[in-house]
């Protein structure tokens, strides 16, 4: 399963594509089980240059109670830094945040699909 994510141009906030709009919450993300549909969504996002920086697909997996990014890096993007729990998305709290924060399972830090490391 894949989810489409990006950073918002104006403030760098991590956003997820719901299928219709961009949301700040991972729980709202639309999931693609079809690669062609995921890539089409990504291609569309790459055209939204005044809204986004660097849209890309990530792998997600089922965990207890819902879904979480496979990679630890992407979980941190969906939550915020672990040294300041009052910063980032996690500050808002809620069930979706708790689920991500406690998600176990094989976190692969290369969870970004087609990862290209840039400077």
């Amino acid at each position, binding site marked *: 399963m894949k989810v489409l994510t990006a950073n918002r141009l104006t403030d760098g906030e991590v956003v997820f594509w719901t299928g219709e709009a961009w949301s700040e919450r991972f729980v709202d993300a639309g999931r693609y089980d079809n690669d062609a549909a995921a890539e089409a969504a990504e291609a569309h996002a790459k055209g939204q240059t005044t809204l986004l920086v660097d849209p890309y697909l990530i792998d997600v997996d089922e965990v207890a109670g819902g879904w979480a990014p496979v990679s630890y890096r992407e979980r941190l993007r969906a939550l915020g*830094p*672990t040294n300041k729990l009052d910063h980032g998305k996690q500050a808002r709290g809620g069930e979706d945040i708790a689920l991500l924060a406690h998600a176990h399972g*094989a976190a692969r830090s290369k969870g970004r699909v087609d990862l290209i490391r840039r400077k």
Partner: protein
Amino acid sequence: MYRYDEIDREVLADRAAEFRAQCARRLAGEMTEDQFKPLRLMNGLYLQLHAYMLRIAIPYGLLSSAQLRKLADVARTYDRGYGHFTTRTNLQLHWIKLKDMPDILDELASVGLHAIQTSGNCIRNLTADPHAGATADEVDDPRIWAEVIRQWSTFHPEFSFLPRKFKMAVTAASADRAAIRVYDIGLRLHRDDEGALSFEVLVGGGLGRLPHLSPVIRDRLPVRHLLSYLQAILRVYNRHGRRDNIHKARIKILVASLGPVEFARQVEEEWSLTDKAAVDLPDTELARIRAAFAPQGFETLPAVSTPFEAAKSSSPAFARFARRNVLAHKQSGYALVNVSLKAIGETPGDCSSEQMEAIADIAELYSLDEVRVTYEQNLLLPHVKLDDVPAVHEALAAVGLATPNIALISDIIACPGLDYCALANARAIPIAQDIARRFADPAQAENIGELKIKISGCINACGHHHVGHIGILGVDKKGEEFYQLTLGGSAEDDAALGQVLGPALPADRVAPAIDHLVEVYLRERRTGERFIDTFRRAGLTAFKEAVYAQAH
């Protein structure tokens, strides 16, 4: 300290206005991200995991109270009320919005601050001995030369597109507090018997994927030729540096592949063809810059201070602070006071806006208006009267900044790691926090003595792990955070690269492993030996066994 003149101020104002227009064009869709990215990077703006990060230059780690107050204000207004001091003595703000950047640059420019030379393949903001102008073991004030290089290198047209980024460090002291052997160029000033100043020039140091300690390529360079000689080094590098391979593009690879002798020969040849008079700094200009750093405002005081001695005997906590964080000044009756940004359990190098303001107030009142940033991610009040140290201690303690742990096991360097950095493999900060908590008892930490732990979240080595007495490198093993330990590194006079201890450890085994390493040291040490001395004498085996025997 050097105050920006009319030309500097115009340059900053122009730069801020230029970036304002560039941001507007990007937001309006007149520029793509690919076009905009190099421009924002040239203004210190990176995109990290959660937001944009702004890296603000603090040239040779020197700040006035007004500048530090402005940083506090910018961090509070445009960020989350804190900043992170780095091993390059810059300040990073982790929650910046692109739309605020034009105003932020204007704010910074109003006090002579900016983000120039904090990114890109140019000559970066340089670092210097944080004890400059205050320590008895220096032959000149290295800030003078650092400022000369800053002015020469800023927007240098020939060196704005080097094969890779380029970092320099300068010291004029016998003790290396600027890690001069791990940068592209390290400069150490010497004074001969006749009083003439010269530079020892080291080239080709660097950490990262292929770490190197720099060799000396010129033993004594007369100081008047500094700029023409630097130009010759950079020309050889610009011509022959490996632009084809990003992993081999730093000058360290060129120096290592040619060998220091051949590299030096090519530099000398280039230099011999240089019209030196056209490049070297005129004496009048040097005198102008030198005057900006002339000692000012010192009083004639006795070497022994009654209030300082009385506070030491009446308060064990103050006595410990005096032992760990207070150092002798070249001026009688004065001291250097280290401000640790390593409070137990906090993020190494982080400083809140309130803390920055408190330090700015203390510096204005008690330290001739100056603050220094050290590459070990601490701050320093360089010119405090011994009589005032008790008051300074009290004021620092009131904002949680009187941790007496300078150079001890909890004075850990840690890069932002995977909590913030887009390049990271693993987190660095929580590892540092774990270790510091384990050694929170100040008496125990003092008994262990000098022990420098340095942590990087990836091989780029911003946390200097190769040169830690204990180095810790975050690696990614099948998607999990693992940590590789190295022992025996140093960035100081006994500079060395650490040796790998053994297979990488999972996160929760790192702090216990440090415990075992310390146990071996305490068992094996001989009188007067620091951790690294015992390691060098006794070798890797005993340490390795202690960690890996326990790991199973």
